[in-house]
């Protein structure tokens, strides 16, 4: 008798847990879809994009639609997966698209010129003195671009538009 009542209670508790989990799962799915295909806030840090982005970290909004429809161009700040370390995502500016001729300083006396090959982009950090970018690892395939940054939420309540 007691056992039956316990089982009944357990069943209803299990059902409630399942319902709640389903709601949480649906919310996480929606969040995940929005983050991957629409727009996502990202924390970026490091010295390579000074003065545009802070050293200690900035929350930026990046949208993930432009790079799928080919609307990324010169001058855009993009999130790109590092060709040297596949687990890292870098924030750099696109300086040249495929077919463009790019000149850069390898060291203060010596400049080099390259043509960006088909299907690639040339990315550079705004702070050329402290940035590891296409000047070191070459042009990057367009397929590695993950998103385009369009908004920065600064710590001082000042919202800057790019």
């Amino acid at each position: 008798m007691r056992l039956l009542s316990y089982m009944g209670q357990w069943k209803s508790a299990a059902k409630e847990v399942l319902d709640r989990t389903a709601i949480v799962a649906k919310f996480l799915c929606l969040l995940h879809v929005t983050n991957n295909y629409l727009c996502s806030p990202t924390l970026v840090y490091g010295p390579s994009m000074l003065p545009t982005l802070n050293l200690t970290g900035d929350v930026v909004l990046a949208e993930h639609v432009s790079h799928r429809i080919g609307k990324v161009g010169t001058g855009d700040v993009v999130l790109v997966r590092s060709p040297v370390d596949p687990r890292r995502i870098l924030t750099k500016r696109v300086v040249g698209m495929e077919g463009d001729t790019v000149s850069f300083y390898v060291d203060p006396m010596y400049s080099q010129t390259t043509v960006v090959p088909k299907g690639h982009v040339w990315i550079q950090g705004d702070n050329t003195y402290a940035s590891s970018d296409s000047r070191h690892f070459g042009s990057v395939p367009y397929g590695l671009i993950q998103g385009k940054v369009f908004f920065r939420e600064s710590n001082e309540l000042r919202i800057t538009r790019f």
Partner: protein
Amino acid sequence: MVGLIGRLWNLQYKSIVKEASGKTLAVAKFFCILHVTNTYLCTFALAYGPSMIPTFNLTGDMFLAERLSIKFGKVGPGDIVLLRSPESPRKVMAKRLLGLESHSVTYVVDPMNSDRCDTIVVPKGHVWVEGDNIYNSRDSRQFGPVPYSLLEGKVFCKIWPPKEFGSLMKSGMKDPDL
């Protein structure tokens, strides 16, 4: 009178809209699950072209590719992988992985015209891919080592044509006597 007709119309309209939205939601949920499975678990793809003869036919073979190995780094030389082309970002191609980062790969530079071989050490974060049919394949010998992040999936099973159904062995060369 007009008010009554208005109310009746509202009722019908409401139930139609409710049913339509219910069915649309069910279809949307199904597509979501399909999309999640395709993107994160397993997908099937159709490959055509001469670069992977004899493993894949010229006119097109369907196969299953799984996405988990790439994310966990469990691919190795000998696997057939799907990767996004570094030359045309909208194209996905199937090639065989021949070398991971820091591997030393020896390849025939131009098999149609000469037997000259070259050796290269694959840089960090990159992989070397080649088609099985080196006479007619555009691969790392032309566009260089490919960043690991461009890999999209690992092919593990061929499903069409039915008489060639089965898992794809690592060796890549089908024994004609079997």
